[in-house]
């Protein structure tokens, strides 16, 4: 059933499905409803890490090195644990700076250097193109093997195909078409390809399903589960050895260095950078990928060893290449459908890798290799072209086609040579050279352009010498002598035992020397000078990526003048005039300006334009192009340092400012409260004045009335005249008393009163007052009781003032008592540290509600407007002031109809008070 036309049509049908998915994905993206905006799809697309080298090659590796194939997948799992910090930072930096490739990233970090971008591109192309060849070879081989069904024929032993019948050529051409279609549909500042990503995620599912299907078939149908397979392996010494690692230091060293190598590869392979950074829709998706992607790796690896063992048991004579076990085992068991599924799985693994890798490489080649050259080529007159977007797209397309053809040519040339078969890890070791410049670049501000160049060149050179050239030699393209004897027959220069280092495998050996050279040169050369202006600016953007929000920082390192009329056509030339206008309009709207003409060509706009351009032609070229149309004033390194210092100062200031503003708020609240108090006092003062005038007017009115009678009617008889005069005298006295009290009150309140403080015997004062008021009691026939404790300690007070207080309380008591039945009790007693005086009466009493108001000025119980006032209303307030002045308290206890008790306390003289006074006088 597996005729050529069946296999071919199934292949085309599969590719058709891919096209459909990619087309649908692009359509949805254009409509703004992305199908890849989903963390699971992001994690699946990351599985582009698993190429045919995994799909077919893992089993091959496991068949020769046993469990030693695993570190390639354990490394990415470990690295995922660091993604939260490292990958997130790279993603954020790339999004903020519109970085579209790993070359762009490195070049942008070190001052937008075109040289650096070109260097990274060259390393990537040399390191990756053979890896693309490997995919073509694997797909082509699987096709050939399947074609010979039911025989199992190894392609190496099959007759070489003439060029035009070589399936690999057609695969390369079809993939080129697919990649061009979905990789370069239009120029976009973000350089994202949603349809392509959707197709890649789908391919990841297909290859996982296919591999797990074979795994289950081999493990559970061909054999009786894991236990059975491993039991059988136990019986064969060669297979038994696969279950363990050689118990030597070298093999553990190799184990760890492969883990380390794959940790770097998962970050810096161009296809991984493309998928994980450039194609990332939302950085939140990274979170789930941190565990979902390692889970994918685990699932696709769990059956590798069983399949390898199963294959070795099934084909013990070694006639079948272990790399093909995945395909040949189902074929040998006449499982045609399964074999076809495996073939499709391998196809998906190969095409996925090729598509993404080619897009990533073509972006680099276009932006960092071709464009810089073309833009410098004055005779091309590119500066005069109005629309270069078409040119850019064709460069990308040609680059894709060229890379794939280059891959094919290498495949034709290398064939079964070691240089192709062993390229997997060699390729990993090449991209690992990017690690120091990138990791150093995002955590260390001191790296310079020369440092990065030196590190990359040194690491790459060591890689070529210790890995690439020996692989050529093993393929027979170079003399093996230089491996065995060393360059120029110098033993120390043996490429795989450099400086006499033996005991390591070729990969760990090369990794050690290349990393040593790379990191050493990067650090040493960087430390030769201070980073210059541009490098410092970029270093701050990259290293402090988490501290700055987007756009806040970038424009601060730029000073100069620009015209919108210059910038817009420049962007238009590369993005196409329409897209450029749209982008500028969008920017204008964000700034709250209606049209492009109103835009101000400030630093922000220049940087926006540069970022747009960077998305299309790379950061370094964009810098050159923008610099050609705007006038820039170079910033000195000191100025840049100042700006950076300012930034930290500004942060400090803003913290201080917050603190100050909090303090200010507190102060404001206090002031507001104080103001309220003042207003209240002001109101009270007004009340006071109006009350005082009212109180003064009453006696004045009666004095005036009686005086007028006496004046106008001289015939008033003597009796009346005496009566009237007596009233006048009485009212005048009242007036005098009132004025005296008001003055007294004012003095006390303002603190100007004179106090004659002395040690006073309270009992004596009370007796004296009682003697003075005895006539009052007698007049109203009110009985007086006194219970005065004798020999109390003295108090410190003003004697006359205290008499004033007692007089006031006693006359009040008399005033409110009924004649005859009235009874007043005066008590003097000692409480803890104070003397207490109570004046109790059985008069009308004071309602609860009035007990507070009687101590206010001019407040008398009852309506002063109607009832005849019985006092000035100042007696109690003055008394209270006096008592409080000497540290005591005055209060009342009463209820209506049951009399009232006025009490006050005064502290005994302990000597403290006197010392206090003395201190104040001093």
């Amino acid at each position, binding site marked *: 059933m597996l005729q050529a036309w069946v296999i071919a049509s199934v292949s085309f049908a599969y590719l058709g499905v891919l096209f459909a998915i990619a087309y649908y994905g692009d359509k949805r993206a254009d409509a703004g409803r992305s199908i890849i905006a989903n963390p699971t799809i992001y994690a699946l697309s990351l599985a582009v890490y698993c190429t045919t080298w995994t799909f077919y090659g893992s089993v091959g590796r496991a068949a020769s090195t046993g*469990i030693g194939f*695993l*570190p390639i997948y*354990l490394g990415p*799992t*470990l*690295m*995922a*644990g*660091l*993604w*939260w*910090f490292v990958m*997130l930072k790279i993603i*954020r930096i790339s999004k903020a700076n519109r970085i579209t490739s790993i070359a762009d990233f490195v070049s942008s970090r070190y001052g937008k250097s075109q040289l650096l971008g070109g260097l990274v591109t060259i390393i990537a192309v040399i390191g990756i193109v053979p890896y693309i060849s490997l995919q073509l070879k694997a797909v082509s081989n699987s096709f050939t093997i399947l074609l010979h069904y039911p025989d199992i024929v190894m392609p190496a032993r099959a007759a070489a195909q003439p060029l035009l019948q070589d399936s690999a050529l057609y695969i390369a051409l079809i993939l080129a078409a697919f990649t061009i279609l979905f990789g370069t549909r239009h120029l976009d500042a973000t350089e994202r390809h949603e349809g392509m990503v959707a197709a890649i995620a789908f391919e990841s599912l297909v290859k996982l399903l296919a591999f797990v299907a074979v795994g289950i078939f081999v493990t559970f149908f061909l054999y009786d589960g*894991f*236990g*059975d397979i*491993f*039991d059988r392996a*136990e019986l064969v010494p060669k297979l*038994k050895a696969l*279950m*363990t*690692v050689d*118990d030597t230091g070298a093999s*553990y060293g190799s*184990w*760890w260095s492969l*883990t380390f190598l794959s940790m770097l590869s998962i970050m810096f392979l161009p296809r991984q950078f493309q998928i994980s950074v450039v194609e990332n829709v939302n*950085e*939140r998706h*990274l*979170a*789930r990928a*941190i*565990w*979902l992607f*390692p*889970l994918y790796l*685990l699932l696709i690896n*769990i059956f590798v*060893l069983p399949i390898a063992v199963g294959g070795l048991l099934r084909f013990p004579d070694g006639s079948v290449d272990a790399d093909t076990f995945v395909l040949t085992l189902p074929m040998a068991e006449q499982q045609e459908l399964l074999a076809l599924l495996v073939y499709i799985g391998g196809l998906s693994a190969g095409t996925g890798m090729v598509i993404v890798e080619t897009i990533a490489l073509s972006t680099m080649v276009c932006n960092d290799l071709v464009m810089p050259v073309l833009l410098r080529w004055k005779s091309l007159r590119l500066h005069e072209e109005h629309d270069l977007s078409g040119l850019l797209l064709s460069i990308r397309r040609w680059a894709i086609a060229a890379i794939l053809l280059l891959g094919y040519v290498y495949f034709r040339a290398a064939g079964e040579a070691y240089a192709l078969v062993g390229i997997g890890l060699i390729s990993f070791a090449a991209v690992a050279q990017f690690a120091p410049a990138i990791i150093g670049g995002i955590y260390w501000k001191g790296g310079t352009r020369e440092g990065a160049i030196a590190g990359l060149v040194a690491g790459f050179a060591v890689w070529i010498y210790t890995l690439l050239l020996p692989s050529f030699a093993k393929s027979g393209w170079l003399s093996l002598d230089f491996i065995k004897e060393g360059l120029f027959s110098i033993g120390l220069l043996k490429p795989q035992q450099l400086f006499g280092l033996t005991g390591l495998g070729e990969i760990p050996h090369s990794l050690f020397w290349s990393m040593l050279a790379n990191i050493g040169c990067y650090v040493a050369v960087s430390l030769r000078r201070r980073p210059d202006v541009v490098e410092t600016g970029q270093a701050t953007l990259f290293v402090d990526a*988490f501290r700055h929000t987007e756009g806040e920082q970038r424009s601060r390192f730029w000073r100069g003048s620009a015209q919108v009329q210059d910038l817009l056509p420049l962007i238009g030339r590369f993005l196409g005039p329409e897209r450029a206008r749209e982008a500028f309009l969008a920017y204008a709207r964000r700034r709250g300006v209606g049209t492009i003409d109103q835009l101000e060509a400030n630093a922000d706009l220049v940087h926006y334009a540069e970022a747009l351009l960077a998305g299309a032609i790379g950061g370094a070229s964009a810098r050159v192009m923008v610099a050609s149309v705007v006038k820039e004033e170079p910033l000195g390194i000191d100025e840049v340092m100042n700006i950076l210092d300012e930034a930290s100062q500004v942060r400090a200031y803003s913290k201080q400012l917050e603190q100050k503003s909090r303090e200010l708020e507190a102060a404001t609240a206090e002031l507001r409260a104080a103001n309220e108090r003042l207003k209240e006092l002001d109101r009270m003062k007004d009340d006071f004045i109006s009350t005082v005038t009212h109180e003064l007017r009453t006696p004045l009115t009666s004095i005036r009335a009686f005086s007028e009678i006496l004046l106008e009617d001289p015939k008033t008889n003597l009796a009346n005249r005496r009566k009237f005069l007596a009233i006048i005298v009485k009212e005048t006295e009242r007036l005098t008393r009132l004025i005296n009290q008001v003055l007294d009150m004012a003095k006390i309140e303002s603190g100007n009163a004179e106090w004659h403080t002395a040690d006073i015997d309270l009992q004596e004062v009370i007796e004296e007052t009682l003697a003075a008021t005895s006539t009052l009691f007698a007049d109203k026939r009110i009985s007086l009781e006194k219970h005065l404790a004798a020999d109390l300690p003295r108090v410190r007070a003003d004697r006359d003032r205290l008499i004033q207080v007692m007089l006031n309380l006693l006359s009040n008591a008399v005033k409110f008592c009924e004649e005859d039945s009235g009874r007043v009790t005066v008590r003097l007693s000692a409480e803890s540290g104070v003397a207490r005086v109570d004046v109790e009466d059985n008069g009308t009493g004071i309602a609860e509600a009035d007990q507070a108001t009687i101590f206010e000025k001019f407040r008398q119980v009852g309506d002063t407007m109607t009832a005849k006032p019985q006092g000035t209303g100042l007696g109690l307030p003055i008394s209270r002031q006096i008592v409080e002045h000497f540290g005591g308290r005055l209060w009342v206890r009463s209820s209506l109809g049951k009399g009232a008790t006025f009490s006050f306390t005064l502290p005994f003289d302990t000597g403290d008070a006197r010392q206090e006074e003395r201190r104040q006088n001093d």
Partner: protein
Amino acid sequence: MMKRSILTGQRLVAVFLLGCVLFNYPVIALFNKTGELFDIPLLYLFLFGAWALLIGLMAWVIEHRQE
């Protein structure tokens, strides 16, 4: 923007360090012996078990983070 929970990051780094210990000499040497547990070779069982454990830990940390 993904809020960078520092605690989550630290937990993940701790998982990373645990993985570095589990997948490295000398721990793998402890299991690098011929012998089987549940009919499965010891090293194979250990590596996949530790791997699954790491993934489980990372999944737990990620899915239980507070943002």
